[in-house]
Structure formats: structure tokens, C-alpha cells
């Protein structure tokens, strides 16, 4: 898995390429930790190349969402493939995280 983080003005763009699973979740958690300190974060995650996430990945997405709300920011996940989207739908995560 590959995670690219780019900051432009006050916006943070993240692109995830690969699978978030038992072997890569720590790497994803570390990347998320980097994003959790900011005040009023504006985070845009491109999920085009995110091919899979397990519940461990969901856990990190939820922690990130909670942190963003606490810091008065915004989080958007975009271009999720249908199967990953289904995991977010089944678990109700589509209702608590903005997916476009």
C-alpha cells in the first residue's frame, strides 16, 4: 500500500493506493496520526486506488472522523470502488463519514 499526503494552502490531499489490511493498517494509522493534530483540518482522501479495507481500516477512518469533528474540520472520501463502499454502507460508516 502507498499513501501520498500533499498539503496545498489549507487543504490536505491524501491518496491511498492498495489494500488496508492486517499487514498495512499500521502504516495507514501512522498516516492518519499525522493528520490528527491539525486545527480546522480540511482533508480530502482520494480512494480511487483503495482496493480493500478490513475492519481495522474502518477503525482508523472512524478515529480520523472523530478527530476532525473535534477540531472543527472537514473530511471527505472520494471515488470509492463499489466493494469498499459496500463495507462502509453495511457498517453504517457511510452515514457518519462524508463520501462523494
Amino acid at each position, binding site marked *: 500500500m502507498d499513501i501520498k499526503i500533499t498539503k496545498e494552502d489549507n487543504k490536505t490531499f491524501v491518496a491511498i493506493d492498495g489494500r488496508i489490511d492486517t499487514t498495512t493498517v499500521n502504516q495507514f494509522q501512522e498516516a492518519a496520526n499525522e493528520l490528527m493534530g491539525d486545527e480546522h483540518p480540511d482533508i480530502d482522501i482520494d480512494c480511487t486506488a483503495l482496493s480493500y479495507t*478490513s475492519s481495522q481500516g*474502518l477503525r482508523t477512518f472512524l478515529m480520523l472522523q472523530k478527530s476532525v469533528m473535534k477540531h472543527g474540520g472537514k473530511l471527505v472520501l472520494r471515488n470509492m470502488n463499489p466493494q469498499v463502499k459496500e463495507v462502509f454502507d453495511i457498517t453504517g460508516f457511510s452515514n457518519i463519514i462524508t463520501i462523494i
Partner: protein
Amino acid sequence: MKKRFNPIKDKSSEIIEYLMSSPDIPDDDELQFKLRLSIEEAVENVVSYAYDGGIGWLEADIHFDEDALLLSIELRDAGMPFNPLEKEDPDVNQSAEEREVGGLGIFLCKKMMDSIKYRYEDGNNVLTMTKKVNS
């Protein structure tokens, strides 16, 4: 095919790949996604919680019933007796503030597979998951 992994500490990935390498799994992305997710959640559950410190074994078995077109995955361990199906499903209508981090693994297995059963047999936890395969 069946294999016993011992010890299982840090072996989640190896166990998952072993089961996913079964020639009985059809070349179907959607099905493979669901199987991989269910296998990962179930294996991770045993590796993380069955034994204190992950020192113990797990037997992974994948079997295809050609008449019923049914793929069965069985995980067996000798860890603490634990029925993961007794855990209450998460409330998927809660807000982000209310949602607790975690507790989604077995819930996802239930949703992705056709059936999931637990039994305690000869001192072992046995979890069996099945999925109908259209071929």
C-alpha cells in the same frame, strides 16, 4: 485443504493467504473480496484474542462441496472458549460521536458470508463460515 499454524503470533497474513490460495475459490473479484474480508476478520480474531500473547495454534481448513456449490472455511483453535457470535451487533445508526471504535469484525463476516456457526468441541473453538458459489 487444511493446515495447522503454530504458533500464530504475527501469522495473520500467512494464514489469510493460505486460505485465499485455494484452487476452489473462483476467479471472481467480488466473491474474493467478500471471502478475504471474512477470512481476515475471523483469523484476526483468533490471532489477537484466543491465546494469551498469541502462543498457540490455529487450524485453517477450506473445502468445496461440488454438489452443493458450497465453499466452507473452518477455523479451529485451542484458545479460551469464546463464541464470537454472542457479541451484539454494532448499532449502525449511531452518530460518529456515539460509535465506538472497533467491534465490527465478526459483524462483517456475518454480512459477507451466507452462514457462520460456532461450536466448542473437544476443547477447541470451531468457527465455520460458508458461501454459495455460482459457477
